């Protein structure tokens, strides 16, 4: 255990706790970002460069923004009533959490895997990961890609329908407003002899 690990672990844990307990949802989301970044630092410490960078790219760059958007787009998201710290639901939640983690810890401690010696850390360069993904794991990769594409197309369709509806209502309102102002088109001067130029 070196100093860096303790610092990173402390930061990660602290921000995770803050993310759960802060009142302002945007603050919570930003704390989650710190947690993600701490995890990435942890991966980097384990010499897993690719995973670490991917963690930052995906979680800090994309997922965190998604969470923030979700928080903001929810109406009245920040006017949560101040609930008591020790409400009945809290107590039940704590009990559930203790029992679950206890079970997991028990299972881990009892498992035979722990007794084995650790294998040497694999040399996981980006190139190797790429090769693995393109050879052994090409099918799962393709399936994931397909799934994500389907999800994206679905999202686009949902967004498009929403937009069309909005546009319809908007344009109706405009024409309505314009019509109010228009009474009778009076006679207007027409271009008597017109010439044309191309622009």
């Amino acid at each position, binding site marked *: 255990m070196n100093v860096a690990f303790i610092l990173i672990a402390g930061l990660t844990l602290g921000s995770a706790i803050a993310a759960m307990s802060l009142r*302002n949802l*945007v*603050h919570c989301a*930003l704390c989650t*970002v710190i947690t993600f*970044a701490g995890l990435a630092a942890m991966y980097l410490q384990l010499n897993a*460069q*690719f995973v670490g*960078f*991917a963690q*930052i*790219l995906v979680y*800090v*760059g*994309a997922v*965190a*923004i998604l969470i*923030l*958007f979700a928080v*903001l787009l929810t109406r009245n998201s920040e006017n949560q009533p101040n609930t008591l710290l020790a409400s009945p639901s809290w107590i039940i939640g704590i009990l559930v959490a203790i029992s679950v983690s206890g079970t997991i810890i028990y299972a881990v401690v009892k498992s035979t895997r722990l007794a084995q010696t650790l294998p040497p850390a694999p040399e996981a*360069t*980006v*190139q190797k990961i790429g090769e693995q993904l393109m050879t052994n794991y090409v099918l799962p990769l393709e399936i994931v890609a397909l799934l994500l594409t389907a999800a994206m197309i679905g999202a686009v369709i949902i967004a498009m329908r929403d937009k069309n509806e909005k546009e319809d209502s908007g344009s109706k309102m405009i024409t309505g407003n314009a019509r109010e102002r228009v009474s009778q088109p009076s006679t207007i*001067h027409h*271009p*008597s*002899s*017109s*010439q*044309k*130029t*191309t*622009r």
Partner: protein
Amino acid sequence: MQSLDQIFVTGKQWLLAFLPEALQPVGSILLVIAAIFGVFATLFAVTTILERKILGRIQNRFGPNRVGPFGFFQPAADGIKMLTKEDIVPRDADKIIHFLAPLALIIPVALALSVLPYGRNMVPVEFDAGLLFFFAVGASTELSVFMAGWSSRNKYSLVGAMRGIAQMISYEVPLVLSTVTVIMIVGSLSLVKIVEAQSGFLFGFLPSWHVFTPWGFAGFFLFMIAATAESNRSPFDLPEAESEIIAGYLTEYSGFKYALFFMGEYWGMFAISGLSVTLFLGGWNAPFPFLQFIPSYIWFFTKLVLIIFTFIWLRGTVPRLRLDQLMSFAWKFLLPLALTNIVVAAIWFFSRALQFPGALGLRWIFCAAILAVSYVWLGRGVAQAQRAKRVYQYAE
């Protein structure tokens, strides 16, 4: 010549030799940090004055010319002004996030600057996956825009932040996709290896930079457009659109925090221009064999300054896009073109096997034709504005 090229490397080692053995790694890191900050803070100062002077000349004015010779001490005057200005934080602002936002911009950008190869053997931090690191830290600058816009508790700031995030996320896609071609051809994410792959000369005098291949040219074009949008430069400066939303997410910033934001944006521009130099313009390689005696870092920074000049030139010319047009440009034009470019790069890569005379020319024409056709076709789709040419009538 060799010694001049490596003067900074040897200089660093000479300095480190003064330190005890145990402190040398720390000393090395600190030296590199100091060098990055020093070089880019100077470049930032020079760029601000050059930008104002070039814009001035484009607009037929002198630009700032009062402080010092030709006005070149203007950045110093601006710096003093910024430092001594009152730091105003709105009463309703979220003070912590308001304070942290400029830091959340400066830190990732400085990290991004640390992986670029500035010259032969001159990489501050050498990663195997340097490119990935660059994009990873680059992506987190969006957070700072959000933090600044949200914490200011100002309507213009909020609109600016929303615009900024939407724009940066959208343009990240073509940005990354346009670099995929380089990764495919070089077969590495290491920026050093990418630069080394561009050394050497075709037929003994043509630089074998990526930009001189069809896919490389298209990739460079796409990358530069996306980079302009990523660094919020005109014509994609919507998040700070002065005529619409005052200063966007920067509206409520003043004094040193504003200066930090300003510097962060310029550093971001340097970083992304440096990346485009590395990926497409041969990094620190000289353009011609007979110019190789000039040190490598000078070539890097020359190319960087040229790209920055192009940014300024563009800024002096074009008006701003609208948000929906910006989005449709990213998703309907840049993205399909970037995907086409990946296919073209694959064709280029696998047609290397063709070895008959004139094969290079054939590959060239074929790839360029695909790209040109898709450019014209996609361009027609996106520029619906170029509907029928308008004809105006005259009344006598």
